[in-house]
């Protein structure tokens, strides 16, 4: 579940980023943060339901929004969104029980 906890931390960072960067709150960033935390929490509560895979779509939308709606390089909050989206695109693929074999391999065949 460590990948899901990383996603929760990244979501919390996104939620806090308007204060950190002292920028106006972007509803897209807030929405993405809430969705990332919710999906990670669902994955933690129901490990068989790979809800975290939807985080990939959210990360793409977050990154694309920051990349295409600002001049490049954009303001700090846009660069922050791009970096977080890339990190989420890394973590969302990691399975819930990453250190254990996949379920079909857990019982001797």
């Amino acid at each position: 579940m460590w990948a899901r906890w990383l996603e929760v931390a990244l979501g919390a960072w996104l939620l806090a980023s308007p204060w950190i960067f002292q920028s106006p709150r972007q509803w897209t960033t807030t929405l993405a943060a809430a969705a990332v935390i919710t999906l990670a929490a669902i994955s933690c509560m129901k490990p068989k339901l790979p809800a975290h895979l939807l985080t990939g779509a959210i990360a793409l939308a977050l990154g694309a929004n920051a990349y295409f709606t600002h001049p490049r390089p954009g303001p700090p909050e846009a660069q922050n969104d791009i970096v977080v989206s890339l990190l989420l695109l890394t973590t969302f693929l990691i399975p819930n029980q990453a250190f254990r074999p996949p379920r079909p391999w857990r019982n001797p065949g």
Partner: protein
Amino acid sequence: MTADDLNAPAPPWNYNPSAWSQRVPIVILAFIAFGISSYMAAYQWRLVDSVWDPIFGNQTAQVLDSDVSERMKRWFGIPDAALGAVAYLGDALFGLAGSTRRWQYRPWLVVLFGLDVIPLGLVSAVLVLVQTFILGTYCFLCLVTAAISLLLVWFAYDEVWSSLAYLRRIHQKAGAVAAWEIFWGRRHPAAA
């Protein structure tokens, strides 16, 4: 060797390339490179005023502030060092994920890890070397991360090779569908 022995050697090697003893050094090296790249990104973001270089003086700063670097910042929307930091963190996270028999149980994860480490590592090392010779200035920290990239390629290729060789054996024995199912971590009668 049974299909359920987590510490079995992976052909063609006589050791297990997915063992923690093989993967932990990769993860440690990747975290070190992540730290160095993050430090260089912090300089490019001007979160720190200067950048440390014990050998080439202010040449590291010249490379990080160069036109090439600025152009890459305009392409990617973030400093190139930040992009490198994300890639190295990806190496570390993909190195951590998976059991000690992931070369067989999760080939997709090993291939993804290989794609992150091998082509990206080689490209980033070549880019650093090209940048060094085009600009004629030497960036100590960039050279350190390039060396780590090449070491990571060296440490990672055996596991990727095992996974690909295993998929090839399954493909020859049971066909493409079986290889596809096993690639995604499903168990198939053809899996030995």
